[in-house]
């Protein structure tokens, strides 16, 4: 009788251990599933379209450089600078281009320690030669960038912008 009771007790214990193992296994599977689901965030601080739209909009900005009864767009000012032509209102085209680019980028991309944007690089090349080279902040492994090039009057202009985050 005592032997029978001990046997019963052992079987009961085995069942309990079995249930506990199943519960632990299910809990582990749920935790793994939860972990995978929570890690699936693919949102970026800067989107690709933002960088390419920025360059596009930047090129259409009307500067203070007066020529042919119009204020030149950045796109045309780059050519003036590349060809070393000054504006009709006696403004140095390259100096204006450098200042305008620097001001526009600083107004558009807030680079500081508290900001998600860590730094930027901006280059303008004319026939492979650097016309403008602006850099600020830190360069990191995460960045979004865009390149635009166009040709007029034999000059090939390449504009490159990278935002680091």
């Amino acid at each position, binding site marked *: 009788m005592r032997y029978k009771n001990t046997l019963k007790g052992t079987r009961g214990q085995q069942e309990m251990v079995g249930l506990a193992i199943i*519960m632990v296994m*299910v809990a582990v599977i749920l935790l793994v599933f939860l972990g995978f689901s929570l890690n699936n965030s693919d949102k970026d601080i800067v989107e690709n*379209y*933002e960088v390419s739209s920025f360059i*596009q909009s930047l090129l*259409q900005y009307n500067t203070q450089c007066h020529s042919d009864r119009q204020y030149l767009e950045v796109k045309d000012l780059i050519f003036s600078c590349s060809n070393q032509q000054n504006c009709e209102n006696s403004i140095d085209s390259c100096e204006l281009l450098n200042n305008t680019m620097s001001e526009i980028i600083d107004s*558009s991309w807030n680079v500081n320690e508290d900001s998600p944007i860590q730094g930027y690089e901006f280059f303008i090349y004319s026939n492979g030669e650097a016309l403008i080279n602006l850099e600020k902040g830190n360069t990191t492994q995460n960045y979004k960038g865009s390149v635009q090039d166009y040709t007029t009057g034999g000059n090939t202009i390449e504009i490159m912008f990278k935002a680091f985050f």
Partner: protein
Amino acid sequence: MKNQRGQMKIQQMAFMLITVFIFFALIGLFIISFKMTGLREQATNLQEKNTMLLLTKLAESPEFSCGESFRNTKTNCVDLDKIMALKNNINIYQNFWGVNTIEIRKIYPEIEEEILCNAQSYPNCNIIEVYSKEGAEEGIGLSNFVSLCRKNEENGISYDKCELGRIIVGYEIK
């Protein structure tokens, strides 16, 4: 005695079955609630993607685009004069874009304070509240860079003036 033991066994099994059922029911509830949250998140993500798509094509839509109004054909350009006219007739556009808000902010040249654009302050202002959905709760905003172009006048001569701005589209969190 045998009957009693049998009843005990049946009770034990019933109790065990109820425990297992409750355990799996709890797991089921957990999964369902998790899936429901996932569904809401998916709906918000979908809304975000739609807003992004709208954002990239909004500047090219007839209501916003510069079209042939300016000297050079422009892309990613918003005609501010057109926007001011649109703002006055915005009631026709309720629920047209499927978003909560559409706002345009001038970035460069910078103006120190925030000045809302209306018939009196335009063009010396930097914020245009183009559209706001009636009764909309606060949501999330996505933005994109655009050229903000208008006709300007100097010494009686009209010329194109394009500045840099951001178009901000707000959408609802599901």
